[in-house]
């Protein structure tokens, strides 16, 4: 279903406002005859706000520092694992092109090699600790436990299992993530195996790949998709301040006003045949 244009429901500060307004929460509506002026917005202000918000959960740190202590390692661990995946893809591409990814094998190969280890190890460690801490907090804090369902614990347990299994795979077998890179290589080459990697498949490595793949498929089905949907919560609602001064908005408003509601309360007077525009132009039934 295509979601219709909704009524404006922005909340200030709106971070794409230009200049100081983004800081104190001002808007273009602070100007006399604002509709006659060109609306200024600042991508710089928005980025300046969003980068620390996404990377470091700045809002949570300010409003709920106790939870941030647990939530930040969890989220940052996730980001590092996503970064590690990117580095693994990059490393596998290098292998496809015949460039070795190993220490002392040129600047690029060495850089990817060491960065993958750093990012992967930190990501798995932070993720494991953060998820366990969040699970414990949800279980022990009555304010959270009172609102938690089986799925809330299951989600955390699932993610914890992924991080922990990944960490164990690193600890027991794959210190340099060579096995993980070989798996990505095989995906990119439809089953190919990089030179010298045959027979390196391990239980923990395979399990972490299975869990990781399941997790990627599972997250969009849960409220954990807020990691991505936050974009829409901010850009389509909280910061959506576009005034109806142009044809695009006007056209969509007219389309909405042509819809035929069926609300049943007598004062609405909806019969499924009248449009929103007709009902808005009529008096409530109590008046008649």
């Amino acid at each position, binding site marked *: 279903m295509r979601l219709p*244009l909704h009524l404006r429901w922005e909340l200030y500060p709106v971070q794409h406002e230009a200049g100081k307004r983004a800081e104190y929460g001002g808007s273009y*509506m602070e100007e*006399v005859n604002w509709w006659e002026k060109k609306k200024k917005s600042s991508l710089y202000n928005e980025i300046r706000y969003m980068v620390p918000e996404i990377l470091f959960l700045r809002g949570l740190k300010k409003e709920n520092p106790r939870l941030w202590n647990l939530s930040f390692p969890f989220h940052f661990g996730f980001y590092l694992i996503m970064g590690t995946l990117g580095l693994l893809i990059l490393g596998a591409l290098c292998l496809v092109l015949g460039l070795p990814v190993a220490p002392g094998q040129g600047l690029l190969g060495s850089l990817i090699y060491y960065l993958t280890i750093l990012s992967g190890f930190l990501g798995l460690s932070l993720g494991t600790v953060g998820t366990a801490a969040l699970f414990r907090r949800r279980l022990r804090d009555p304010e959270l436990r009172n*609102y938690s369902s089986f799925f809330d614990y299951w989600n955390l347990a699932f993610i914890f299992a992924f991080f922990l299994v990944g960490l164990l795979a690193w600890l027991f077998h794959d210190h340099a993530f060579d096995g993980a890179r070989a798996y990505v290589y095989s995906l990119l080459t439809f089953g190919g195996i990089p030179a010298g990697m045959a027979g390196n498949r391990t239980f923990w490595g395979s399990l972490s790949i299975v869990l990781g793949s399941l997790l990627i498929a599972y997250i969009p089905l849960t*409220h954990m998709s807020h990691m991505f949907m936050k974009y*829409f919560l901010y850009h389509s609602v909280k910061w959506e301040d576009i005034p109806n001064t142009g044809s695009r908005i006007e056209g969509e408003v007219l389309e909405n006003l042509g819809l035929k509601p*069926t*609300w049943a309360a007598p*004062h609405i007077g909806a019969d499924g045949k009248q449009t929103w525009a007709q009902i808005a132009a009529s*008096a409530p039934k109590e008046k008649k």
Partner: protein
Amino acid sequence: MKAPLIKLQDIARPSKRLAQIRAEDLPPLPPPYEDFNQKNLTELGEEKTANVEASLDGTIAIGIPKPKTKEEEEKYLRAFLSGLRKLFEKKNNWTFLQPLLLSMEHCAKCQTCSEACPAFEMSGRQEIYRPNYRAEVLRRIYRKYIKPFGKISAKLAGDIDLNWNTIARLAELAYRCTLCRRCASVCPIGVDNGLITHEIRKLFSQELGIAPKEIHEKGSVQQMRVGSSTGMNPMAVKDSVEFIQEEMEEITGYKVEIPWDKEGAEVLLLHNAGEVLAWPENVGAFAIIFQAAGISWTLSSEEIGYDGVNYGLWYDDVQLARVAVKHAEIARTLKVKKIILGECGHAHKALTVIADRVLTGDLNIPRESALVLLDEIVGSGKLKFDPSRNDFPVTLHDPCNVVRAMGIVEPQRRILRKIAPKFREMTPHGVDNYCCGGGSGFAIMSGYNFAEWRTLISSRKKFLQILDAFKNEPLEIPKYVCAPCSNCKGSIRDILEYYQATERSHIYYGGLVELIVNAMAEMKKPIIRFEG
């Protein structure tokens, strides 16, 4: 003794009262107000509650008649579920479908919102007032009864029963939140539990015809029937304004003419008609400023055209659209260049921001906040000021609808910095402000003991903020709370009266225009008089 934690499922369980508000749980007031720290909410007698839903928390906002038969109860439940389905349909709820879906699906239940909610904090952290309590109840009902396989998944995703207790208490609970949206502003994800409260109110009004009578029957319906939610018809409002005109000359020594229905004026000024009755000096002060600054302006004597309120904003999209369209039609007939919203926060938001996607074509007449125009007038040098006339401590209350919902923050401050030498901010202020406690209709709702609940709970934070702003001032000197919003003024008036703050601390309240006129060098006598 600490009360047992109320669980989400408890909303469905029969009990005489789900939550008990106790004086000892409420954050204490400082001297000289300690005697109010033992004040409990007045108990409602059996005779008042016998036939209406009163099992939530000891107060009543709506007064829903209890069903007399099982069939009647079933009918309520069917209507509730039908309304809930409609909230998620494009044709019925295009107005808020996307924001609602996003807030229903992505809450992480981290409870960060709770600390931001003044009603939750000031009630002694009553679980049912936690912003996420009512939202999570609705989420569980939605998942169980509306979504596919909901009854099976509810066992794992969070179960809840749906019965008369659930829906009746949920309806009441939707009127224990002032929709100030402070909770939404601190949510790390952007989830808006205030919006969910708003949608619950809509469900009850638009499908079941249930809403507090002050905002529906005596509010938006009366506004459309006689012209104003105050009950004033055009003739009555013209008489009252004529009286204000005479009064203004008597009070300030400045002769003012208030224009009516002037076709082709630059500005149509829309007041909250409550000002005419309760704060006539506000209406008069606007007229003085506009006349002195040479603004081409007019009032409208058309029905609805002299009352800028739009209560639909709080509970009913259809009522909101009807009033907004009428306001725009009146402006179009008068051929004005723009509509200026007077000192009324919800009218600002309703007509300027919300109705922006209701009004099309020649009904889309520019709308602007009076605070912005006043800022331009004060800053232009057209008027001469003597700020020493406002030589008393002044603090500013930020109406949520003007500040957090519209981003109009600095104009009113620029004015105050120019005309009030003893201006100081509240903590916090601006977009982080606290609601006056009268938001979303509470200021005008006073049935049963609701006004007392408001003063004790939802307005308590504002009272503490006001006291804090003046804490270093001697009790005996007059102090002024500037509240540029009619509803906020109403609830601040009630706080000051209930806690006897004018007698005990010499705290007074009023609007912004009164302060401006008070500082105008041209005025022979002050408009602000600290009396009573």
